[in-house]
């Protein structure tokens, strides 16, 4: 069918089908709510902003409401005009439902309402009603002194009904009950209760009674009423309830007129449990307007058509359901009435509180049983202690070994103490290790059980005790964040401030005259940090005295506490010198500290574990050591990382912000398209791996040129293959996209412009031709050799060298957009076949120093699946079919071009121009791409192609020249 139709030729525009138009029109009308009124009312559909249907009166089946969904009328919406109530008060009417009903509706209503005829009106309801109506009519016809409708109560029923008469005849009187026998104990009790209630809430109970009565069962009511006639007359006689006005509203004003649910609430509030058995307590959830979720935020519902979801819940709610508890309280049978009626009735409630027939229980069964929380023993620690890897913990209970006098040899003493400290901190493994290592060493005999073994054992015990204490004290600290003070650090590191006087002298002296490994002694005698600092650098090596002072300074610094005034320098120093030295020291210490922190990235504890031959036990000291580092790292981690990307504001946004569009005049971005193509054709491998710079380049489109220039220059020095790898994948899809889809309608104009620009340059540059030819030729030749390129065979001998060069140049840059894979592969062949052609296209040799995008374009082509190839091949074929005239034309132009670039290639005088031209190139590059693509697509437009190909290669040559020049300069 379709194919048939395609074969036909149609003239004119087809007439659209009537129904199609009509239905569409209707739809359109229905869509635009403004036109809604033009539709008949049964066709109107009210929709909200989302286009969902809105119902009016959703619960009655709901259609459009009002006058075509407005509050107006046929005559328009006219508000009730204001009239002074001073003059015509009587005219102010109370509105009732009849005012809003049509005649037919009224008739309907009238017909439907049932009423007993006056004849059988036992209690005179109908009669009363009639009389009332009569009175009302009369009132209206002749206004009385009392303005407004006469209160219903004043108008009494004038007649007695048949039933009444009968009853009266039988001896019944007003105020007597019909059924005395029925007054059972239940009713009695109830009556009593009611009476009692009335007694203490007489002020407000009455109106409520009158309103709540009808809710009771009708039949029961009827029968029951007379029985209660002593306290409460039956309904047959209107009762005038004196309703004291307690609120501050105007007379007759009903604040709950439009919100009856609040009346209910109020009533519940004021008279809590009067008839709790019968009346259901107000619960918002039963209500029509109630919320469908417990967690619904208070005060608001949602539309009938909207669904309640998570976001409607009250996120700010405390999670407790107060409402629930309140209701339960209200249902609690005993003393709710008193409780809920706050303060005022409380006193009276206390007096009469007990309902007649009840008495207060002396002891209630209901007792709240309380379970006290278990008593926490005083020494309980709310933390689980692991039977840790530390032996020190388990050995804590060991009895302390005997105190042994230290050995006389201070060095040995220091060594023993040091080893003990380390062992205490690192665990038994260290002891074993050092024992093993130092078996032959006399000095370490104490480990095996030599002379001073006892002393060592004692020291070890002391150390363990100490480290344990520090740990405990740390644990005892409330703050979870370990705050490091100099003191606590010292403690963690095992510095012993008490023994300072003993240790410090040795620390400086000991290394000098001890034969065993000095480093080890150093670590033992000094605090680790300190020693490390010294290991890291001795900033004042050349001045030993100063160095000593510096160490002293460091010690003071890390020990914390007060610094003695003279600690800064020797006494012979002047005040200013001392101050200067102090500053020096501070700076040096800071530098060292920084270096240490950097080193600390392999935490202290790790070094310890390495020390203990890969033992898995982290010592307490080690672990604690890590903590501050971790916190430091934490703060470091949050250091914000800054990245920059390309972002393209829309032109209109720029306009609205009163800014100049940074991308003005640049072609629109195609990031989305690119990504699509990426997923279609390419594996985005190196794209992701590339750094931010490349990200930037990939994001932007035409504006990549400056950056790509940088890359070019960089790439030239680099080796060829690397260049290829690096540049791969950047930006190619854009080209491809354009190649396939873009129109080349603007090509012609641009080409002509470019050509005119080109021409004057050519003339000027021709002057330098001979000079530059040589230089450029040399360079390009060498490059050509490197690339293994072939020299095309048919060159006029005069310009051979130049052409050679130029061709290589062409080969280099080869932004050549058409560079089809086929050609690159079979480049030689094609060149031989059609040298003219290849030249025209600027050569198919592999690119070397081109802008990345261009080159990538080439490479992409290589990666492109076969269909791409075919496209290009077809274009090739077209080109092959060039007629001789055009090729002739081209050749001549090419010749001039050749001249032009060879002449221009490298001279100082042309440098500036050349930059400007490179600038122009930036602009041109995008154009080129488009052109390229257009050519591929519209292969039939040969002429244009022919025209612009030289222009393109000129651009290229210029650029390339620039690069080669840069190289030369290098």
């Amino acid at each position, binding site marked *: 069918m379709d194919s048939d139709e395609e074969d036909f030729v149609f003239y004119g525009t087809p007439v659209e089908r009537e129904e199609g138009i009509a239905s569409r029109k209707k739809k359109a009308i229905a869509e635009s709510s403004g036109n809604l009124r033009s539709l008949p009312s049964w066709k109107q559909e009210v929709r*909200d*902003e989302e286009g969902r249907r809105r119902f009016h009166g959703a619960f009655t089946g709901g259609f459009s409401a009002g006058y075509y969904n407005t509050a107006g009328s046929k005559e328009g919406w006219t508000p009730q005009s204001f009239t002074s109530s001073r003059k015509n008060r009587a005219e102010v009417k109370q509105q009732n439902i009849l005012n809003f009903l049509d005649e037919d509706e009224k008739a309907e209503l009238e017909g439907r309402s049932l009423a007993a005829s006056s004849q059988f009106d036992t209690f005179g309801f109908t009669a009363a009603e009639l009389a009332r109506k009569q009175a009302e009519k009369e009132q209206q016809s002749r206004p009385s002194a009392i303005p407004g409708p006469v209160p219903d109560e004043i108008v009494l029923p004038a007649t007695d009904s048949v039933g009444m008469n009968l009853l009266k005849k039988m001896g019944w009187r007003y105020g007597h009950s019909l059924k005395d026998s029925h007054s059972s104990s239940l009713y009695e009790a109830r009556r009593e209760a009611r009476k009692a209630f009335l007694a203490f809430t007489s002020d407000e109970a009455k109106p409520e009674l009158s309103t709540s009565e009808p809710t009771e069962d009708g039949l029961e009511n009827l029968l029951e009423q007379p029985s209660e006639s002593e306290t409460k007359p039956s309904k047959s006689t209107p009762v005038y309830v004196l309703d004291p006005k307690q609120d501050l509203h105007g007379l007759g004003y009903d604040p709950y007129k439009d919100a009856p649910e609040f009346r209910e609430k109020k009533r519940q509030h004021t008279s809590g449990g009067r008839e709790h058995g019968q009346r259901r307590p107000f619960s918002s959830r039963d209500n029509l307007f109630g919320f469908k979720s417990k967690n619904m*935020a*208070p*005060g*608001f519902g*949602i*539309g009938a058509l*909207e669904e309640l979801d998570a*976001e*409607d819940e*009250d*996120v*700010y709610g405390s999670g407790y359901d107060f409402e629930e508890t309140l209701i339960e309280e209200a249902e609690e049978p005993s003393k709710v009435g008193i409780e809920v009626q706050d303060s005022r009735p409380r006193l009276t409630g206390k007096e009469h509180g007990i309902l007649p027939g009840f008495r207060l229980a002396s002891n209630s069964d209901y007792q709240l049983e309380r379970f006290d929380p278990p008593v926490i023993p005083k020494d309980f620690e709310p933390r689980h202690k692991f039977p840790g890897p530390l032996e020190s913990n388990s050995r804590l209970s060991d009895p302390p070994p005997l105190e042994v006098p230290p050995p006389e040899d201070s060095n040995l003493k220091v060594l023993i103490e040091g080893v003990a400290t380390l062992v205490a901190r690192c665990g038994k493994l260290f002891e074993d290790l050092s024992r093993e290592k130092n078996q032959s060493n006399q000095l370490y005999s104490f480990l095996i059980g030599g002379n001073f073994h006892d002393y060592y054992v004692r020291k070890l015990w002391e150390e363990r005790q100490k480290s344990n204490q520090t740990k405990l004290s740390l644990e005892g600290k409330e703050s979870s964040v370990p705050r490091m003070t100099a003191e606590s650090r010292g403690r963690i590191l095992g510095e012993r401030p008490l023994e300072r006087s003993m240790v410090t002298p040795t620390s400086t002296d000991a290394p000098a005259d001890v034969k065993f490994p000095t480093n080890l002694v150093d670590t033992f005698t000094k605090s680790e940090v300190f020693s490390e600092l010294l290991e890291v650098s001795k900033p004042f090596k050349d001045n030993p005295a100063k160095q000593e002072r510096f160490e002293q300074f460091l010690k003071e610094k890390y020990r914390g506490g007060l610094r003695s005034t003279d600690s800064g320098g020797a006494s012979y120093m002047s005040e200013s010198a001392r101050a200067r030295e102090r500053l020096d020291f501070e700076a040096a210490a800071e530098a060292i500290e920084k270096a240490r922190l950097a080193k600390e990235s392999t935490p202290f504890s790790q070094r310890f574990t390495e020390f203990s031959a890969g033992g898995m036990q982290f010592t307490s000291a080690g672990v604690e050591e890590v903590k501050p580092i971790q916190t430091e790292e934490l703060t470091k*981690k*949050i*250091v*914000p*990382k*800054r*990245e*920059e*990307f*390309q*972002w*393209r*504001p*829309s032109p*209109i*946004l*720029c306009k*609205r*912000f*009163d*800014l*100049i569009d*940074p*991308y003005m005049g640049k072609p629109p971005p195609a990031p989305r398209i690119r990504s699509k193509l990426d997923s279609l054709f390419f594996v985005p491998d190196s794209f992701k791996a590339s750094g931010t710079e490349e990200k930037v380049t990939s994001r932007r489109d035409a504006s990549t040129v400056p950056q790509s220039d940088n890359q070019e220059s960089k790439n030239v020095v680099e080796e060829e293959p690397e260049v290829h790898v690096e540049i791969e994948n950047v930006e190619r899809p854009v080209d491809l996209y354009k190649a396939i889809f873009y129109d080349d309608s603007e090509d012609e104009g641009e080409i002509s412009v470019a050509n005119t620009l080109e021409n004057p340059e050519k003339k000027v540059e021709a002057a330098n031709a001979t000079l530059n030819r040589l230089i450029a030729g040399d360079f390009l030749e060498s490059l050509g050799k490197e690339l293994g390129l072939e020299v095309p065979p048919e060159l006029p001998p005069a310009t051979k060298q130049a052409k050679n060069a130029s061709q290589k140049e062409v080969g280099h840059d080869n932004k050549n957009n058409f560079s089809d894979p086929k050609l690159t592969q079979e480049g030689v062949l094609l060149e031989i076949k059609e040298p003219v052609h290849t030249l025209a296209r600027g050569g198919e040799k592999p690119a070397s120093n081109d802008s990345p995008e261009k080159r990538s374009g080439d490479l992409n082509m290589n990666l492109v699946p076969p269909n791409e190839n075919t496209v290009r091949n077809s274009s090739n074929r077209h080109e092959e079919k060039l007629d001789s005239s055009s090729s002739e034309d081209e050749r001549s132009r090419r010749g001039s071009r050749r001249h032009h670039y060879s002449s221009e290639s490298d001279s100082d005088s042309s440098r500036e121009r050349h930059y400007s031209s490179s600038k122009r190139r930036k602009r041109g590059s995008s154009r080129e791409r488009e052109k390229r693509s257009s050519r591929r697509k519209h292969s039939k437009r040969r002429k244009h192609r022919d025209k612009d190909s030289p222009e393109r290669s000129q651009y290229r040559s210029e650029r390339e020249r620039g690069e080669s020049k840069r190289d030369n300069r290098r």
Partner: protein
Amino acid sequence: MSASDLPRKEANVLKGHEGAVLAARFNGDGNYCLSCGKDRTIRLWNPHRGIQIKTYKSHGREVRDVHCTSDNSKLVSCGGDRQIFYWDVSTGRVIRKFRGHDSEVNAVKFNEYSSVVVSAGYDQSLRAWDCRSHSTEPIQIIDAFSDSVMSVCLTKTEIIGGSVDGTVRTFDIRIGREISDDLGQPVNCISLSNDGNCILAGCLDSTIRLLDRSTGELLQEYKGHTCKSFKMDCCLTNTDAHVTGGSEDGFIYFWDLVDASVISSFRVHTSVVTSVSYHPKDNCMITASVDGTIRVWKT
């Protein structure tokens, strides 16, 4: 400004919202303030006299943010109904509704000329809307974020957005660049310093961070308050001397800008303090809370 000048005395309580107040903002000259909340209304107040001037109702769900033009003639508001409402202040009518966000809209701001509205949505995007044309399509969609955008700030030339993905991104229209500062913590609220050189970013790890805009350097961190699960505001005082922000326990905190010490903290509300706004000139501040009140604080 010394610490004693901090607005610590309650001058007025603005009651009227039913349910939580989600945002309260001074207008450009500080004479009025706007609030919006869960009750789907926007209210205009005179905080100094403590009276409500107008109520704007049209939103279908809660209103999350509101902003006023510099000439006080127009309002823009956004909320849970995924729409941005462009109001006329005096008549209270909606001039335009901008639809397009795929999800709730968290924040909204006018630009300097009140010609563009930029909104930040849960749909991970910033959208710019044109107030001048009749088009209701966004003129720019920025979807660089990878999570809900919580807050947006505008300068003369930049759009700054803070997102739950932990980044504060600055989009410079003039040079067409996006600068992303990754804080690593969900950003709840961003506000500019009055000199425009710093960004204050309230993060969901109960920390407010001060960033240098030019370098992206973290200048200071302010801690002490609780901010873990609610969208809460923070801002700088009018002199840039202090940082202030609410806390989930109903307290408000004042920090010294430079040394990040808590200068003052006191209870202002019974519940989460959702919003704080500082008077542009005077020592006056408004706080809004889930408890439904807005309180005006003066020295």
